[in-house]
């Protein structure tokens, strides 16, 4: 991409190939386009939200590869040849995943704006292993900010997930 550096930043574009929620596509993107704006506006998946645009609130969290990342702090260019999962991937044909269902059953969301980021952070965390205590639940939640719920419903939702004898992934 070195030849593009000379261009007006508003004009500089590049091609990226990215797999989003299982479907692979090639996109011409502005080099300075953030990954969040790319997902929301160019791909058309607005469920990923922007809360602070400086990596603190976690509303824009998605999974890239095997990591939960802040899509506001990355450029679309950095997602080239990566695989991305967003909140839109969690339910199948409108049927909520166990984690989403637990959020619903425990009133773990109010305005719902931060919810996508919490869900994606937790999906990544649950892939690493089950959440077995309130302390673990709080730690898993602590990278994101919610202003409505006081986190009580989210802690309850995590504690309600099945953790079959140390097997991970009960909530995915």
């Amino acid at each position, binding site marked *: 991409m070195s030849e593009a550096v000379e261009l007006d930043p508003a004009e500089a574009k590049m091609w990226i190939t990215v797999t989003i929620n299982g479907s692979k596509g090639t996109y011409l993107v502005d080099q300075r386009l953030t990954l969040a704006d790319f997902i929301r506006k160019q791909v058309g998946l607005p469920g990923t939200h922007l809360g602070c645009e400086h990596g*603190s609130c976690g509303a824009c969290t998605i999974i890239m590869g095997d990591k939960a990342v802040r899509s506001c702090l990355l450029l679309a260019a950095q997602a080239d040849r990566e695989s991305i999962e967003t909140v839109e991937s969690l339910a199948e044909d409108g049927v909520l995943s166990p984690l989403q269902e637990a959020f*619903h059953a425990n*009133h773990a969301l109010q305005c719902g704006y931060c919810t996508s980021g919490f869900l994606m952070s937790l999906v990544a965390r649950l892939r690493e292993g089950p959440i077995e205590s309130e302390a673990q639940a709080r730690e898993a939640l602590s990278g994101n900010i919610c202003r*409505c719920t006081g*986190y009580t419903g*989210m802690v309850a939702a995590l504690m309600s997930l099945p953790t079959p004898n140390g097997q991970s992934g009960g909530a995915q």
Partner: protein
Amino acid sequence: MTQLSEVRDLEKTANLGTGMLRREDQRLLTGGGQFLDDLPFGDFYEAAILRSNYAHARILSIDTEAAKSLNGVIAVFTASELGPILKDLPPKVTNPKLNYQVRLPIVKEYARYIGEPVAVVVAENRYIAEDALELIEVEYEPLESVGSTAQALKEGAPPVHIGSETNVAVHLIQQAGDPEAALKSSPHVLRETLHVARGGGHSIEARAVAARFDGPTQQLIVWDNTQAPHYVRQMLATIYGVSEDEIRLIAPADIGGGFGPKAQFYGEEVLIPWIAMELNHPVKWIEDRWENFISATMERTQTHHVEVGFDDDGRLLVLKDVFEHDQGAYCVGLKVPTITMSTLPGPYVIPNIHSELISCYTNIVPTSSLRGAGRPQAVVAMERMMDRIAEHLGLEPAEVRRRNLIQPDQFPYAVGLTFRDGSPLTYDSGNYPALLDGVLERIDLAEFRAEQIEARKSGKFLGLGLAMFVEGTGIGPYEGARVRLTNTGRVMVSLAASPQGQGYETVYAQVAADAIGCDIDLVSVRHGDTSFIPYGQGTFASRITSTAGPAVWQASTQVKVDIIDVAASMLKIDSGELVIRGDRVEVGDDPEKGVSLAEIASIANVGRHGMSVARNQPVAIERTSYFKPSQAAYSSGISAIIVSVDVETGKIEILRSILGHDCGTVLNPLLVEGQVLGGHAHGIGNAIYEEAKYSKDGQPLTVSYLDYALPTAMEVPTPELFHVVSPSPLNPLGVKGSGEGGTVPLPASVANAVEDALRPFGARIREIPLTPDRVLAAIYGFQRDET
């Protein structure tokens, strides 16, 4: 019309009183929310706003030529291009004594806070618009500025508004009894100065406005994530000089938190729609977090000089409070400080009261209501002094409170002051001793005091803090609801107010279904669009349950009467024999005989073109009801906090948090608890973590979440909740507000707990939030440099 019924016994209702799970969740959990910037607007231009980077300056010139010539920039607007809309944005609540200063949508000559709009760039996208902001050359003449109430009120302080002799915005006094005489004759008088710092709303979705002029209908359509769509429409109609029907204001179905700042009216809301009309092209503006920090209204800054007089038993004889309130650069409204004035006495019998407000202008972004709205500060003033009385007399703080509480048989209780709604401060109902008892059932005081003494031996400092409050909610003037039977036999409830996560689509379906007696699955709720219902006020001041709730109930009850009367006409049977079951109206003792709601809609609403209708048969089953409360309904509550304070680091650990809450009848306990829990988290933030700091001359020092600490799941404990139910006699549902009660007592109860923990040090807590440096200063007597 038949007499409207009241809900007093939730045992007999099918839906009300149950913790029904939310209808809103499915779309929000799957990324299908309809937040403003998620809507498929298509080809809208995007705006970015240049903001003053001086707290006080005169603008000498603005050169926008370079910005205008940037590729992709459509237009740049400054005050000189916006003459027709350079009109005052008036305060929401005012007073004849206000030292009134005009607030314009955009700076014309003087910028009075960092963040005030100076220019608007419209471009093909936000990236280009922000590029262009950097190309605008503004020549400022910096002026002296003030960054705190203390600075603003100093002798010879520079004026926030040049030409005004004083920075005082308003000076008001309310009195009951003869406070001066009572202070002279009281056996004991204690005095203290208490300060509460600024904090923000911090809805995770910031503000946003989009607008399009619709040529074919000649209507301006504005999307605005406001808490008060009809209020914004009215303001725009007034400023643009058009009729309200020429503007359709839509608060999107989903709004990412409100908490007060989104209930205010801002320059951006005037600028963006006007610019869309000027350009004859749709435009949107999405506030980013940095803008939100410096341009969305905030709250809380108050300094209270409080005195209490009491007898040997700790019975209150007099309360005198003189407090300074930070209005910011302009008066967006006087609601917050006037609420403070009348929240001071709380649940106590106080024969003599002096409540005095000195509100002043500063060179900081204006203040307005924020979850709690002036109440947390009042509760700090009152409840901190209740603890001081207990300390002075060697009594348990709980006991001093118990001796002073208004008793359940004293309602309605006239305090002797006036509330912010203009009506006398008269508590409608409550049971304050039950709130205190609820805490004492959960904390064994003797056991705790023993544990506290024991813990000190090992260098562990435990403290217990209580705070009680009475909170005016459900204020006027009115709120509206329209209920229709649709062509498909469904019931459509349209609300004027827009929700920000409160669950209106769920709880108002419960209200309508129970009022009508139909299957709740037949009821839909929509909201926030001025085309749904002509008038409304909005979501603020914990008012919707006790204003829109009764409006939905009344309109639905009327719709039920209409439905049955149409069915009676169709079935040629007396209406008294008919009942609504599921989606049908049936003869009570002959369920085979009946008509469906869809058939009723077909007869009554669709009708037969040109044909006459039977004399007693209603047509057009659609009822709009506006409920007008006679005065505020007073919720109440208590917070009890047990902390452990680390005297080496100043860290506060909350070991237990108990919250007792009384908001009258509880329509949906899940949603009410959600409100209280969320408010509690906000209160924890205000008590310990959140502080918007400014330099002495008004430079904001906390403009990211790295500087401004919002509590996470690690900081907010799960409180133990209990409810006391004192139904309000002021509305047919018996309800009161619950949106703010969780926040209101926390700064006071946490401060009381910390001071209790630090009593061996004689520490005095005078400033909130209780950041570690403040706690250490209180223990070791450091001087802090407070601006």
